[in-house]
């Protein structure tokens, strides 16, 4: 099992990601991406899953922000993408940064969303994106 650790893992954001993944077998990975698409912290069982998520999260976030605004939903707090092989949950941190968790097949969507909101809250509370 390979393991990807961002250079900023020692930061508070990295700690929040690590804490979330600890003793949580449902999660394949967790990461925090800022508005420019830079990884602030990542911890995953495989490298590929993080790379794929990072490549898509910024355009997906932009698209969903626009859709939410056009439909009058207001600012996005979270969204869940439930697939038949894996699921992902995204949660806004500060209006531009996003907390992402990737769950394995069969993980409860609500639990994934809760993890994403927890990560977002922890990173926001610790001021993890201030750097």
């Amino acid at each position, binding site marked *: 099992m390979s393991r990807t650790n961002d250079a900023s893992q020692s930061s508070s954001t990295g700690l929040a990601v690590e804490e979330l993944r600890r*003793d949580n077998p449902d999660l394949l990975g967790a990461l925090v991406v800022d508005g420019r698409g830079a990884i602030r912290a990542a911890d995953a069982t495989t490298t590929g899953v993080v790379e794929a998520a990072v490549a898509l999260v910024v355009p997906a976030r932009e698209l969903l922000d626009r859709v939410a605004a056009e439909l009058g939903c207001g600012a996005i707090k979270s969204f869940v993408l439930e697939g038949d092989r894996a699921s992902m949950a995204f949660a806004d941190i500060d209006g531009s940064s996003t907390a992402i968790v990737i769950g394995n097949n069969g993980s*409860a*969507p*609500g*639990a*994934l969303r*809760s*993890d994403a*909101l*927890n990560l977002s809250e922890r990173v926001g509370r610790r001021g993890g994106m201030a750097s």
Partner: protein
Amino acid sequence: MIELALIGSALGSAALAAATTAWVSRGPRLRAEKRLTELESELTRERSSTRRKLTELGLVHARTTGRLRSALGLPPSASGLEPMSARKLPQALRERLEGLIEVDAVVVADASGLAWTREESRSDHALAAASAAVLASRVAGQGPRVVHVELADARHVVICPIPGSEPAMALAVASTSRPASAFAIDAALAYAAEARLHVSTDPTEPDPLVGHALGQARASSALGPQLIAELERESSHAGVGMLAIGVGDDIVAARGSDGPSVADLSALYLELRTLMDRIAHRMGGRVRRLDWSSSGGSTASAVSVGPTGRSLLIGASRAGKLDVGSFDRLAGRLRRLLPNEGSRGAQPRDEARHA
């Protein structure tokens, strides 16, 4: 002639004997007939008295039911009600419960961990996710009737699967310092059953937590005899059916005369451990104690023996939750026996309890 005389004498004797017997038995028969008549009239009186009592009981039952329904905030009669849709029920249930008691958060969530109630507090999503873990929990194929969790920071979470809900949903209530009132939760669940026109049925399956004796004390470690001695000492006066202690994924000692079967004991231990880990993760705090109550009315309780969380003491009892004091005392003694659990000492809250 003599023969005829003998025959005549015999016939006369028989007639005399018959007449005598009739005369003698007539008295008891008359008394018996009289007694029979008395008994029949007594029976008639009893029948009419019983009918009157039944009518009175029916009236008392109707009055009591009416008072209870009124106390629970239910309409006087269930007849003529339209079933509430699964979409409306969760919010209505939450409002009903919040009208009865003051708690930190109430959530109705489904098995995927998504809340069906509006998210009003920051912990709502965590409660919803914890509800999914409880809904997935099984011991011998049976789900719990209610799960109560006490966290190390004095928060309490009570999660009850809602009987007859479709899709499967659970009511989760978070409070501080004490668990939410069982009466209020039962009232809310009664309201849910009423709203969905669900008729509860008596459990027909055997209770997985009780009914079996551990024939021989089980011990799979060098500490086994000492641990079993402690378990025996405590179980003799704590009123528990079974006590067991596990380290990691294995039970190291177990003792009891009325607990789960040997096959179910390991499954119960692992289920309680997994549930404690999941709820701790969801609620963001260490679980101090977890009570898993079956639909049959018995309860299995689990408490972390030491600060590492590796050792777990579990017990099962027919009479509801296990006594907190006895459980804590035993956990304290076991903590000193188990390696890696005693060195860091008890938590401040535990110390306060022991004092």
